[in-house]
């Protein structure tokens, strides 16, 4: 226990002094939150809150069109005098899509560089043209459609749903890089050789490194949460006991996953590169930012084997922005713990004990 305490304090000092690790643990997620929060402005950038620039020529049908525009709830309308001024603002992203009615033809204008969002804007345009066609003929829809939100109250903001995903990504990044990378670097610098001739048990070192990183990840997620609440006025309904358990379980699970990488790729730089690729793939394919449903079926299948998919799901659940069955939550949590239990002894054996020979 004494060895563990000493090693824990030593590791804590090393962690605090290492500026790059500190950056990755605390500033990296904060930067993600800031950039995504401000860039996306709390919306998915998609059509359900699209800014539409409209030029409507006066004429017999202009009232019908204006009625359609004012009754379409998924758009905010800005008026323009002519098409040229609308195009200038559209090019500068002052509006998301443009509409020009010259009395005979309905023209929709899009910014070609918004390739990821134009599909959603086309849905809005289709709705407007259908409704206008009916009203122009003096008809009204035979039935109306009402959208009803089902789910957690905290989930009503796109950014609220994204933040737990960013927290999950932070845990993944810290878990993958931290323990295995740190121990491999110690091994490369022959520090483990020196520790091996002392009575220090390898498990005490492993436990000290894990505890320090676990603490840093937990504090890091709290800092990120606090920032998102303070700056972006987001609200979460956090179940603290489950939050703590899930952060701890997923962190140790990812540390175990990092161990697997270390065992496959022994050099820290190569392990770092492999982790970077894995993190990038997982970030895009695990539903953190982009809905999995929009991906091709092959990539959707791939996303189901990534731990980040389940970490994102779990973090959304414990922060109160999404539902999850209790059974599923505990199975996912137990799986992460099992990953750590199975893989940590391998790390102790291959990375620490191996140097005793």
């Amino acid at each position: 226990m004494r060895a563990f305490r000493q090693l824990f304090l030593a590791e804590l000092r090393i962690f605090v002094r290492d500026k790059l690790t500190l950056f990755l643990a605390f500033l990296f997620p904060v930067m993600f939150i800031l950039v995504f929060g401000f860039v996306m402005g709390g919306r998915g950038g998609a059509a359900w809150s699209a800014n539409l620039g409209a030029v409507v020529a006066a004429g017999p049908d202009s009232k019908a069109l204006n009625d359609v525009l004012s009754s379409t709830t998924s758009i905010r309308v800005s008026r323009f005098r002519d098409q040229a001024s609308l195009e200038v603002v559209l090019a500068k992203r002052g509006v998301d899509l443009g509409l020009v009615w010259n009395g005979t033809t309905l023209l929709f204008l899009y910014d070609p560089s918004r390739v990821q969002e134009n599909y959603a804007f086309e849905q809005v345009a289709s709705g407007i043209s259908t409704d206008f066609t009916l009203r122009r003929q003096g008809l009204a829809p035979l039935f109306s459609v009402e959208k009803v939100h089902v789910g957690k109250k905290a989930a009503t903001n796109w950014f609220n749903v994204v933040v737990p995903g960013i927290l999950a990504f932070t845990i993944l990044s810290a878990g993958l890089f931290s323990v295995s990378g740190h121990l491999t670097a110690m091994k490369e610098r022959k520090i483990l050789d020196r520790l091996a001739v002392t009575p220090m048990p390898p498990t005490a070192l492993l436990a000290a490194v894990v505890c320090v990183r676990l603490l840093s990840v937990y504090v890091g997620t709290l800092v990120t949460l606090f920032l998102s609440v303070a700056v972006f006025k987001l609200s979460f309904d956090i179940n603290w006991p489950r939050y703590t358990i899930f952060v701890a379980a997923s962190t140790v699970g990812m540390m175990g996953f990092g161990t697997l990488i270390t065992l496959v790729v022994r050099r820290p730089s190569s392990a770092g590169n492999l982790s970077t690729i894995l993190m990038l793939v997982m970030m895009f394919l695990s539903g953190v930012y982009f809905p999995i449903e929009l991906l091709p079926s092959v990539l959707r299948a791939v996303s189901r084997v990534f731990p980040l998919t389940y970490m994102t799901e779990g973090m959304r659940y414990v922060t109160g922005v999404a539902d999850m069955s209790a059974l599923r939550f505990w199975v996912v949590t137990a799986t992460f713990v099992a990953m750590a239990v199975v893989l940590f002894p391998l790390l102790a054996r291959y990375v620490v004990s191996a140097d005793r020979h």
Partner: protein
Amino acid sequence: MRGVLWIARAHIMTALREKGTLFWFIIFPVFLLVLLALMFGRIGNVGEMNFDLGLVNLDTASSTATVDFAAIVERAFEELGKRPALLKEPLFTLHRPSSGDDAEAFLKGEENMLRLGRRAAVVVIPKGFSEQVRAHAMPSSFSGSTATPASPAGETILVYYTKGSDASELASSIVEQVLARVNQEVLAQAGLFRSQETVPVETRFIGGKEIRYVDFLLPGVILMGFFTNGLFGVPGAILFSRDRRILKSYWVTPLSVGRYLAGFSLGHLALCLLQFILLALLGRFAFGARVSFAQPIPVLYLLLGALTFMAFGFLIAAVVRTANAGMALANLLNLPMMFLSGLFFQVGGLPSFLKVVVYANPVSYLAEGLRTSLGIGTGQFSETLTFAVPLAWIAVCVLIASRRLSWDVVR
């Protein structure tokens, strides 16, 4: 000149032999291009998306009526639940109660599935729907009269969705469009809607042409490759050579710092050219990119990009003492510069303090200048500015590097 070429060759060979450099140089940008093109290249295409949709018809009593409107709505979704072609995906995977199931109980289950994220949306056709539609809208249009529904219908189809979930919001938006088309179809069947009077709709992309995602992505990935190359490759090569005393061994030969620098820069530019060729070929032949870089202005931007990021690398090498510190600084700069530049997504809505970073960031100007010169969208900066700002950065970096970069020369 021979010395310069020798150093250039040595730099290229070292980079290509070094796994780490090769990773950032070739593997990472290629991987990013493949991943993003696969993900977003076909977004919105028929047969590429699939949403789990609950469809619950509570209006089963109307199945014996003259016109079963609820069944018409169901059929519209059934059509979208079929595969459009072999190896293509249906837009919706429908979840409906089996015959004999209690529809109300099934609906509760579907609501729960929506809450758990297993459904993108649930469409509910209420009890008495057909009767209400018939009674409200056209009391006799389906039996010979020509009454016209001019006021909104009293009957409502409910679409349950999860606000804030991208998939659910998009799915519910598509459902709304499907139902709007059903409205039109039914009105046309009743002889009320004159399809020949449908409003003509045109679609136009500003700048005159639609851009395919891979054409938008490719210039960004190429610049990102140059960027990581300059940011990590240049200080890495110089500082590791200095730390390992390789530079010192050069200075015992007749090689001057100036000639070493010329050779190093030449080698770096050759590596950028190699990277560009590889990515451009991959983009064209694997993903069908049509964007043409073989024009004077895009070539100028590419050259300017390679030079700017190389100068940045020299700046990093100049302000740190060790290779490890250099890599740490490069890591610190990498993400903010890449994200706050519009390289992969737009940065229009930033607050002033972050806009300062965007406006000071040379990547912003190079990304926009290159894309605009290739005809991919229009930019917010003038062409002069897209050249002037990176050039100013080169001047500042070279000035600082020339004063502070230690070449470890002890002659």
